[in-house]
């Protein structure tokens, strides 16, 4: 049996210069990782090295720097392809972020394939980015959008999944892990149900790829979208994975330079995958930074990342549920969730809570979490959310619990 690797958080924290600072004279406790993660030195250095030593436009230049930049950019694509087990690098399309990747599918595939009376199946826990693009396409085409609801544990009602998906369903779009509830959805099962009905299956992997092993071929999804900045990479770079045979049949999303084979006044032909979907000069530094982030995560191992976050979550859930008046949304079983904990404390508004925690150097998110339909479903205006990554520790959770107790007492006055 292979010995299970555990994370030495103190050593890992050395790799993240931002974590060394004080906020309001207290050590920074960064619990807003579901919004964006911090960046390790190797990512910061990779971006800096590109700009210092081989900044050039890619694919077209013949000179030395252009060649180096092109190689680095395409190496990053290969790293991402391997990381999620895509069949080929052409299936990895670089976008600005997960939102743009999802819009690409909705605008390109959706516009060409969704028609009047068709159905698009989403879940009530989708982030606005996997919801609004589909609402727009549905409106444009006269299609309907239906939502799978959740049970009292914050888990999808699988009976509804099977009820809602029928012959009129064109695509089923599901978050792999919820950015509010933390719930890990059974995407393999949902994908099978979608395919049985002849529908495509899209996974919003923005909250899963950074935190757990994700194998797109094992899931057998047709599309997957995620952002670089939530997985230690820079902002401005995201990924759309799509099965090559589908991407090949899809019309371009954005058009212009870089994505064309031949342009004539009478018409234009497109480049092969993935370039057909990458118009204009791409975010070269961003892709290189994302490649470095993949290197960093693979150096640790995604099983190890997941285990560490489970351990922190288990500890945090145990301690937080002891706080008087604190309500946690989402599964209490750490095997069904990622390290995202949404909660409310008594009748304290989430923004007030975030302000009080900020006084103690603790960064959490508060608000509707870009999931207003879920807030409506839960009948709450907002939540506070603490979300973890590999550099977080149980000691930091202790400080959070103390600060929550302090907030409770301030508002009990």
């Amino acid at each position, binding site marked *: 049996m292979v010995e299970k690797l555990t994370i030495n958080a103190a050593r890992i924290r050395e790799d993240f210069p931002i974590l060394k600072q004080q906020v309001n004279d207290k050590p920074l406790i960064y619990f807003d990782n579901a919004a964006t993660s911090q960046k390790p030195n190797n990512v910061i250095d990779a971006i800096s090295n590109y700009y210092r030593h081989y900044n050039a436009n890619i694919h077209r230049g013949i000179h030395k720097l252009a060649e180096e930049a092109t190689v680095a950019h395409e190496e990053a694509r290969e790293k991402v392809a391997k990381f999620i087990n895509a069949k080929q690098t052409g299936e990895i399309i670089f976008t600005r972020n997960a939102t743009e990747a999802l819009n690409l599918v909705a605008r390109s595939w959706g516009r060409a394939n969704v028609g009047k009376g068709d159905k698009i199946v989403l879940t009530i826990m989708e982030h606005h980015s996997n919801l609004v693009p589909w609402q727009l396409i549905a409106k444009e085409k006269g299609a309907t959008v239906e939502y799978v609801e959740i049970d009292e544990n914050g888990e999808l009602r699988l009976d509804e999944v099977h009820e809602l998906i029928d012959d009129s369903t064109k695509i089923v779009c599901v978050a792999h892990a919820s950015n509010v509830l933390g719930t890990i959805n059974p995407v393999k099962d949902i994908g099978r149900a979608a395919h049985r009905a002849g529908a495509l299956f899209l996974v919003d992997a923005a909250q899963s790829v950074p935190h757990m092993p994700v194998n797109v071929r094992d899931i057998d999804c047709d599309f997957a979208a995620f952002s670089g900045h939530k997985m230690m990479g820079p902002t401005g770079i995201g990924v759309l994975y799509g099965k090559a045979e589908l991407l090949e049949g899809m019309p371009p999303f954005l058009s212009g330079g870089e994505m064309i084979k031949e342009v004539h006044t009478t018409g234009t032909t497109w480049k092969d995958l993935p370039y057909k979907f990458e118009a204009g000069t791409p975010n070269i530094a961003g892709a290189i930074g994302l490649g470095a982030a993949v290197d960093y995560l693979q150096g640790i191992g995604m099983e190890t990342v997941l285990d560490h976050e489970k351990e922190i979550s288990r500890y945090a859930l145990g301690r937080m549920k002891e706080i008087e008046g604190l309500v946690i949304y989402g599964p209490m079983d750490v095997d069904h969730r990622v390290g995202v904990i949404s909660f409310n404390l008594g009748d304290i508004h989430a923004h*007030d809570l975030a302000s009080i925690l900020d006084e103690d150097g603790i960064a959490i998110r508060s608000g509707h979490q870009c999931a207003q339909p879920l807030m409506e479903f839960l009948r709450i205006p907002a939540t506070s959310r603490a979300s973890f990554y590999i550099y977080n520790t149980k000691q930091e959770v202790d400080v959070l619990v103390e600060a929550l107790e302090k907030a409770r007492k301030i508002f009990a006055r």
Partner: protein
Amino acid sequence: MSSDIYKDIILDYYRHPRNNGDLPDANVRAKDSNPLCGDIIEMQLKIGDGKISDIRFKGKGCAISQASASMLTEAAKGKTVEEVKAMEKADVLDLLGIDPGPTRIKCALLGLKVLKLAVYLHLGQTVTEEVKRLV
């Protein structure tokens, strides 16, 4: 047990808001929300002879937004419409007794924006860009 921005007075107004609820004989009502956090404030005013004779507010949101709206209703009562039009950010900060900082200032100013919207509505005047930009 210190918290810089959650002074007793703010929590007191949040817990026991003054002038909260409907004003049945109001002759102007205005409502707005902060899209960033969903705070909502509605103001109901009775204005006669260019003067605010009575005012109530209703709302949902954080302590800063609700307390500042409540404090503003007290400050506005008896003022002329011109005096309300002249009120600014500093007046709200004076009422609160704190500076909530750059991210929370919008919560504090929502009440002022809605109060001014009501006055402009009553006067039939176009709302200024300055007022629109408060939140």
